[in-house]
């Protein structure tokens, strides 16, 4: 079974996501729906069997029709979801006041949602959001219940349908949000299958962020549908078999765990039984002294928790489990054409499973990939500040698309692991601002992926985002940071002490922490060596004189 799951995952990812806007050559042969979930269904503890509900025993013609049936009983669910970040894509940071969320931010991957709506909003937890300039549709039936609750394994949204599922007849060439060829979804079967979300419900969107499997996060990939224990001790069917919501606990459709305002440390620990429904921290289950304090080793490891996040030792590398992550994306080289004037691509990165990944695409530029990648480390107080489209940048320096804030002395910052994305992306050379780009649009004469023309794509993107644009653009080097918090290895797979406690260790250059073993040649080290050396020389000299003098004056004294 694990083999077939893997084959399935490979088949999914083998299809280049978002890479061919025109797919006329695709065969019209009917694609059949998967018959099983990518992550196995756990025994249900529910008190209701949705297959017995009369209101679900019918043919549904659209997603919203199913939602209508759901909210006839779950009267508050639509309202709850509509107030969640999964639906709003809008987040005002409580500390910095920045307007964040997918509808606002610019990243170093596909840039921005604005200007590329039906493609990007295919992963919206709703139906029919086609314009970022307006809030998502507000009717109750615009909520997509099935994307999170379908347990039949055959519900999927199309890649370019603004959140709508693939329905019969499926237009040939249509793809799903995971890049697979789309099949006609049986909405009735999906509606009757509902249950608590499995890893696949969350993963079908979150594992494919940035345009493909593990492209964006590095620690969220299709490897987590059914990971080996060594890849994720919690999520592995051979381990704890956690779903995402085992940690990302929810209350009335609001989930714990945010990438904009992270709990970098958690002094509260487990709380009283059943109490904590608002955090997804390691400490909320493992407590604040997670290692057994019954021995010196456990005590010494616990001593690290004032400086380190759990993730720092327990996620030795990201992009584990056989799926690489994109580590560099240079948009500036996009637009090259082959001898025939057509767009082309190169696939020079070979993943551990033998799959070739794109390293150049005319529509996207140059990429680098990494598998089993070592994180970088930085002090992190949980707050992430974004370089939003309205902020002025200094193009003479590398621009940080988001900034990790932290202070070794504030008591709440910890050293965290991050994936650092190396980017080169477009900006307005007169106004010195990052730009919104219109990349997707198979029928427009401005979309980059259709026309390979940056000038048009930026102008259209800025117009869609309602931003001022000088008309002149260039490219600037960027960094973007992604906190690494998934793919927790079993204890025996944690980072070895000497990975950090050594010269040129993993945390080389990090200040605000004293690290034994990293600098044996400091002033004290040199002084100590000199003391020992001088002593040795003194003793050897003394011995040499004794031997020389002794042989010269032998027999003179012991008479």
């Amino acid at each position: 079974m694990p083999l077939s799951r893997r084959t399935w995952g490979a088949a999914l990812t083998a299809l280049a996501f978002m890479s061919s806007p025109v797919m006329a050559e695709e065969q019209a042969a009917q694609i059949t729906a998967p018959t099983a979930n990518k992550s196995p269904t756990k025994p249900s503890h529910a008190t209701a069997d949705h297959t017995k509900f009369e209101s679900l025993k019918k043919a549904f013609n659209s997603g919203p029709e199913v939602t209508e049936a759901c909210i006839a009983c779950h009267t508050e669910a639509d309202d709850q979801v509509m107030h969640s970040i999964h639906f709003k894509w809008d987040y005002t940071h409580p500390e910095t006041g920045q307007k964040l969320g997918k509808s606002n931010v610019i990243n170093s991957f596909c840039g921005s949602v604005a200007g590329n709506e039906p493609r990007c909003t295919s992963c919206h937890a709703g139906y029919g959001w086609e314009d970022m300039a307006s809030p998502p549709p507000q009717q109750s039936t615009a909520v997509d219940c099935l994307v999170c609750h379908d347990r039949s394994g055959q519900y999927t949204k199309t890649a370019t349908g603004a959140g709508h599922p693939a329905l019969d007849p499926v237009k040939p060439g249509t793809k799903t949000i995971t890049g697979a060829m789309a099949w006609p979804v049986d909405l009735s079967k999906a509606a009757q299958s509902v249950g608590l979300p499995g890893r696949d419900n969350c993963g079908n969107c979150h594992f494919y962020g940035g345009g493909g499997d593990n492209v964006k996060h590095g620690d969220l990939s299709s490897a987590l549908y059914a990971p080996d224990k060594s890849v994720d001790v919690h999520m592995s069917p051979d381990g704890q078999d956690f779903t995402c919501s085992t940690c990302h606990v929810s209350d009335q459709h609001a989930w714990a765990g945010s990438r904009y305002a992270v709990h970098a440390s958690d002094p509260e620990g487990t709380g009283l039984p059943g109490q904590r429904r608002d955090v997804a921290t390691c400490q909320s289950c493992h407590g604040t002294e997670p290692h057994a304090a019954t021995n010196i080793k456990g005590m010494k490891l616990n001593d690290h928790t004032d400086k380190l996040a759990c993730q720092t030792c327990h996620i030795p590398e990201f992009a584990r489990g056989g799926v690489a992550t994109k580590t560099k994306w240079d948009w500036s080289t996009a637009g090259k054409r082959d001898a025939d004037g057509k767009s082309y691509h190169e696939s020079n990165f070979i993943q551990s499973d033998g799959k070739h990944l794109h390293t150049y695409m005319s529509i996207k530029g140059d990429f680098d990939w990494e598998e089993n990648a070592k994180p970088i480390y930085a002090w992190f107080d949980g707050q992430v500040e974004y370089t939003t489209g309205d902020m002025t940048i200094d193009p003479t320096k590398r621009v940080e698309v988001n900034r990790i804030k932290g202070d070794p002395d504030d008591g709440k910052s910890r050293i965290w692991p991050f994936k650092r994305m190396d980017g080169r992306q477009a900006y307005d050379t007169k106004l010195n601002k990052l730009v919104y780009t219109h990349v997707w649009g198979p029928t427009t004469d401005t979309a980059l992926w259709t026309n390979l023309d940056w000038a048009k794509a930026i102008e259209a993107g800025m117009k869609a985002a309602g931003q001022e644009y000088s008309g002149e653009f260039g490219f600037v080097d960027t960094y973007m940071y992604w906190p690494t918090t998934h793919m927790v290895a079993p204890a025996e797979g944690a980072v070895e002490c000497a990975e950090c406690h050594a010269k040129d260790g993993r945390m080389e250059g990090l200040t605000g922490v004293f690290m034994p073993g990293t600098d044996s040649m400091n002033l004290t080290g040199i002084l100590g060596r000199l003391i020992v050396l001088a002593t040795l020389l003194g003793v050897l000299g003394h011995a040499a004189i004794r031997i020389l003098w002794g042989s010269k004056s032998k027999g003179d004294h012991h008479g």
Partner: protein
Amino acid sequence: MAKRCVKVYPRFERFWHWSQVLLISALLFTGFGLNGLHGILPFGPTVMLHTITALALLALWIFATFWLFTTGTWRQFIPRIDGMLQVARFYAYGVFKGEEHPYDKVLWRKHNPLQAATYFALKWFVFPAVWVTGLLYLTYNAWADMVAGSTAIIAVVANLHLLAGYVIAAFIIVHVYLLTVGHGFRSHVKPMITGYDEIDLTPEQEAYLETNEPQRLM
């Protein structure tokens, strides 16, 4: 005065000495490993070994201190100026000419004046420096929250600890080397194994030992 073979190192003192040899060697080896001088053992197990060995040595020192004071042996370690110059002159000059060591062991003075002064400095400055800094190092998390600038303080503590370690290493080099001076390495090491050494006894001491502690005389 008569030279007699007397038991000068009772069983506990020999145990104390050889345990220290073992523990201090282990501490120096693991300590320098942790400092990054070598990577013969993995870091984690080295931390455990260093910590456990250090705690064992501290326990031994507590017993030894108790023993020193209850038996009065502590007097052996009081430094004296008297005779120190002669010993210093011997090491710096006389030894090369093959002179006899100027100091003769007596029952209540096992150490020559220079030796006693060295042990005094070791016991009062270097060893306390190493265990005070070591305990602060080990218990960092217990006090870090209570003082300002704990990151800077631990760096100072760690460097003092390291420096003390190097000084102890230097002491050991001299200590072992000096075993070869005078009567020679074997005759210097042997008493610390058997407990017996040639000592000048006054007639009174001889009479006392023969009467009261005959097992100490060979």
